[in-house]
């Protein structure tokens, strides 16, 4: 059992996401930084389907009631028993993470995975619809599962070099709704404080739309850059609704979404076009 002693700003259970129900209006959800989530699982020898705890800006404190092998990856936080390395901790071990030193989201994997009941094939918490386990709270008790696929890693994983390159963007379906779609790439964008797992809101010199109004509802995907009439883009994220009415100017390649999951409010961001 893992007992939650403190949650920090937000902590949820996440896995690879909820698939096959988008046609019923169910979001994909899943870990914001899939690469870090997968790394934490790999370090403890979990199956890739195992659930981890997604920590937002540090602050999580837990107590383990049994001996367990754990690993933390993603945004580094002080106070961890180890970072990007599998560590076996004794029963009764407790640790408290400080605020993230850089980036936003960290992942705590426990060998066996977090054993909450899957909902529509996934253990991920969807913050928009409320599907999946509730957001972690002080006192939440999480069982440890048996979702393993090998031995824990003997070596620490090298820390990935943080990328400062502009985020790649592929053309979206509605570039014709904009006066000059290249404006997206000319400007620097600032991540807004109301960004979350549903969408990352950006502010900068507004994009000019050549058409007012909205589209009839259109399918949306995480990574789609939607532009409301304000001209301030929103990068739809893991828990975004499956349809929306604002035109999509561009779409991030799937691999770029992990970087989006590490953006903090106030961070500056640039995009660069890649051909379809």
């Amino acid at each position, binding site marked *: 059992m893992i007992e939650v002693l403190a949650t920090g700003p937000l902590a949820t259970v996440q896995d690879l996401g909820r698939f096959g129900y*988008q*046609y*019923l*209006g169910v979001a994909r959800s899943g870990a914001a930084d899939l690469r870090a989530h997968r790394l934490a699982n790999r370090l403890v020898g979990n199956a890739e389907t195992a659930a981890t705890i997604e920590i937002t800006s540090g602050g999580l404190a837990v107590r383990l009631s049994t001996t367990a092998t754990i690993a933390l990856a993603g945004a580094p936080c002080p106070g961890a028993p180890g970072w990007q390395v599998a560590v076996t901790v004794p029963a009764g071990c407790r640790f408290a993470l400080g605020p993230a030193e850089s980036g936003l989201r960290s992942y705590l994997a426990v060998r066996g995975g977090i054993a909450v009941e899957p909902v529509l094939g996934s253990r991920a918490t969807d913050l928009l619809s409320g599907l999946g386990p509730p957001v972690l709270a002080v006192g939440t008790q999480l069982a440890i599962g048996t979702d393993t696929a090998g031995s824990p890693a003997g070596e620490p994983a090298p820390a990935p070099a943080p990328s400062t390159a502009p985020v790649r963007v592929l053309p979206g379906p509605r570039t014709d709704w904009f006066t000059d779609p290249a404006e997206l790439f000319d400007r620097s964008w600032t991540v807004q404080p109301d960004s979350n797992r549903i969408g990352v809101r950006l502010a900068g010199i507004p994009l000019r739309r050549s058409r007012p109004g909205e589209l009839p*509802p259109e*399918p949306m995907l995480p990574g*789609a850059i939607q532009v409301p009439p304000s001209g301030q883009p929103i990068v739809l994220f893991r828990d975004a609704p499956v349809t929306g009415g604002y035109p999509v100017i561009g779409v991030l390649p799937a691999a770029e979404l992990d970087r989006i999951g590490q953006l903090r409010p106030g961070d500056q961001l640039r995009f660069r076009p890649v051909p379809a």
Partner: protein
Amino acid sequence: MNVLPYGDHAVLVEPADESAVLAMRDWLVAQRYPGIVAVVPAARTVLVEVDPATLPVLRLRQLLADAVPSRPETTAGDELVELPVRYDGADLAAVAEQVGITTDELISLHSEAEYTVRFCGFSPGFGYLSGLHPRLRLPRLASPRPTVPAGSVAIADEFTAVYPRATPGGWRLLGSTEVALFDLSREPPAVLVPGIRVRFVPR
């Protein structure tokens, strides 16, 4: 038919005729192309999502150009769902007045039509139903309600819908139903699945 770009693992198919969206979705699902992981319809377009390791987007585009009929046959004879409705919605009187009819006439116009679930969105199990009488087409409320009760039967633009759970919402509320529209113990969990025909029965 247009095939619009949508990132590195999807395209957006826009049939020439919006009435072909559901047929297009059914046709794509029926082909069982290896590598297509999701086919998601909306009002005018269908998203086709792939596992790019099995089916790269470039190959998907060729497949769509070569194989997809521009106007697939409409599938008929889908299941009919009847939803009992108490026409007691907060906006019933205001809608009737705005349209220039009595509330009884409004209830008749809404309950005598047969609807089709065109697509789901907004929240799990929230179906957008086409077939609304043209006289009842009104825009969304200028400011959405912070909470619309679960089971609310509502209209906006060309659609009618039922809120599966309490959420914020800007649609105009005509009534309510006690039928649970999204139930995780069922497969599929939604009652209003794309393609299903729907009637509202006043009670």
